[in-house]
């Protein structure tokens, strides 16, 4: 059996598998809908910082009694807040009469939170003390709660800086505005990305999702495709032909890889077209990385194939493996957010490196030399796993 024959047979088998795939309308629809669904789900539903939260109902309570009936800092505060909110649309601001009312409305679920200015606010400030503002949040929704806290703290911070600046100027009229600001707030932060633009959560998630889909499609598709044919009995048709077992494996892998790449391309198209993701790096490198990812997973797919007798087991096993893999590989959350032992596990998952490298290329515009470590690790994974898998597979095929 020459290598040429092995490859010829595997191409035939891949062609046959793809024919079956393309003639299966339902399967095709799922093939396209699945990545779309994934994108929309994780992209829209998964909280992606403050940006996606809007129209949170927030009540303002002004109990401020003022000071000598003159200037009310609390008014300034509300005006500022209102003008900021007009731009972001994050909150729907209403007014309420007291802290008790706000608490009650939050408990009823009619408000996401409230801002209460106590009666001594103006007095404290104008008499040289610190003014306090109370923020009421809905603790049953930590996401919203944290957002409100962050946003309002930002507003207060800005306001107190401005007020302090005014106070400094009052105390020492010889200073100019800038110097006054530097006295109040000697440090400021300016953050600058490696590439221009402001990446969204989609930019973070699209590469990982692509890597995951393509690699999973091989890891799950291969055992399912093979056990499906074993169950149907059609596998015997290939096995009684003078065909090297390697051809069967290779053909099936090819077909599944192509299927995965099609899905990956769909995700990419959706990411660019609908979700406005920009690709900074070389698109060929993106696909090359996906292929390498597949290579690193093939062995695992084969091992699983060898140990599963029927399609049902194969599918169940896949589910069990897929979920932890999905979350541990930093596709949805940065690995750095995870507890130590989880991070340790993630280092053993090829998906981690594939997603990471892909992200570097797609978001940061990295080239081959900048992802050489990942490339090396993925190749190593692939070689080792295949070396383990082939003998196992051979044994399984002649049971």
């Amino acid at each position, binding site marked *: 059996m020459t290598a040429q024959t092995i490859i010829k047979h595997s191409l035939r088998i891949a062609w046959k598998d793809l024919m079956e795939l393309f003639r299966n309308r339902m399967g095709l629809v799922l093939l396209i809908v699945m990545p779309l669904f994934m994108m929309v789900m994780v992209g829209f539903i998964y909280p992606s910082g403050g940006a996606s939260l809007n129209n949170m109902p927030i009540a303002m309570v002004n109990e401020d009694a003022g000071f000598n009936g003159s200037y009310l800092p609390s008014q300034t505060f509300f005006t500022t807040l209102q003008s900021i909110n007009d731009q972001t649309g994050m909150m729907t601001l209403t007014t309420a009469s007291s802290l008790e009312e706000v608490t009650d409305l939050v408990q009823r679920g009619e408000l996401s939170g409230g801002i209460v200015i106590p009666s001594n606010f103006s007095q404290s400030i104008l008499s040289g003390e610190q003014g306090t503002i109370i923020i009421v949040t809905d603790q049953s929704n930590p996401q919203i709660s944290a957002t409100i806290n962050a946003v309002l703290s930002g507003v207060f911070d800005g306001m107190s800086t401005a007020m302090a600046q005014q106070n400094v100027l009052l105390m020492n009229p010889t200073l100019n505005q800038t110097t006054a600001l530097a006295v109040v707030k000697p440090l400021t932060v300016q953050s600058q990305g490696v590439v221009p633009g402001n990446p969204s959560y989609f930019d973070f998630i699209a590469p990982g999702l692509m890597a995951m889909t393509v690699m999973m499609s091989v890891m799950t598709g291969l055992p399912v495709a093979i056990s499906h044919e074993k169950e149907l009995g059609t596998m015997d048709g290939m096995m009684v032909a003078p*065909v090297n077992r390697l051809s069967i494996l290779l053909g099936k892998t090819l077909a599944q890889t192509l299927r995965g790449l099609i899905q990956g391309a769909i995700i990419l198209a959706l990411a660019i077209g609908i979700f406005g993701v920009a690709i900074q790096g070389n698109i060929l490198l993106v696909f090359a990385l996906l292929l390498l990812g597949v290579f690193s997973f093939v062995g695992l797919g084969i091992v699983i194939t060898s140990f599963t007798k029927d399609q049902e087991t194969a599918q169940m096993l896949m589910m069990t493996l897929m979920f932890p893999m999905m979350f541990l590989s930093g596709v949805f959350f940065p690995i750095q957010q995870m507890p130590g032992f989880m991070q340790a596990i993630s280092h053993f998952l090829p998906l981690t490196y594939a997603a990471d490298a892909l992200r570097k290329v797609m978001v940061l515009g990295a080239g081959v030399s900048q992802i050489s470590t990942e490339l090396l690790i993925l190749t190593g994974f692939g070689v080792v796993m295949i070396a383990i898998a082939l003998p196992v597979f051979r044994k399984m095929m002649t049971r």
Partner: protein
Amino acid sequence: MDNGNIIEVKNLTKTFGKFTAVDDISFSVKKGEIFGLLGPNGAGKSTTLRMLSTLSQPTKGTATIGGYDTVKNDMQVRKLIGIVSEKMIIYNRLTAKENLYFFGNLFNIPKDTLNKRIDELLELVKLTKFKNAQVGTFSTGMRQRMNVIRALLNMPQVLYLDEPTLGLDPQSSVEIREFIKKLNQEQGTTVVLTTHMMVDADLLCDRIAIVDHGKIIALDTSTNLKKIISGADTMIINLEIANLTPDILSAIKALDCIDAVTQETAAQLRIIVHGEDAFDTIVDLVRKRGGKITSMSNLQPTLEDVFLHITGHDVRDTVAEKISTERRRFGAPQARVR
């Protein structure tokens, strides 16, 4: 091969864990013969065929096809054989032609030859009209015909058929049987088929191996197998008792001259007996118990009777009782204790 045997099986054994599915069987099949493996469900027929077609490795023993060992020379063996297995080896989403083309390619048949052969084979089973239709739309009979010609793409010297008429209507069964016969006569293809249906075995096979619990318990031509019964002083009696009661039935079974009793209908029994005075003994007994005999006749033995006679149980999963005491007289192997 030197002695005209295309298949030689020696001490072939297959175990699954502790369970022995095929138990040390040996036989040979002559070139151009139609050889049948007849036995009930779970007898080990399919497992035997799978070993003979390199799909499964024997636990012990060897099998050679055309002189090639099924384990050591599996690739050579595969070129010589075609298999029609229990499950149809056919892709529903591919057309008739695409299916045949795919499998033909796996046998490295040159394109032109393959196209010609596909057309011939489709014509042979009257499927030419459906050449470009997806197989999923075919009837069971059509699919089975596809399944059979798929196995013939490489013009095998040996064709294995595992329950080829299973699930087919009588009409399609006849068609398949005639096709197999024709193939055997015209191409000289050696055929090994498994079946649990007596007609298949009776009508098709030159020789039949009766298999039970993984062992071959008898191997001969259909005629000779039947002689096991008709040659000895054994008879098959059809007995109809209008008022058959369990009491009468058990009394009959208890008789010395009875080998096996199958209850066919509420009033009808099929009895295998031995001894010259068996007829009288039964009539006397039934009368004494108040039974009313409405009909009693002598039947030609069928393979079913032979099976029942040697194994003591029915091929079909109907109730069959065995009276084993007399069985050894006929040289049948000892009943296995279960």
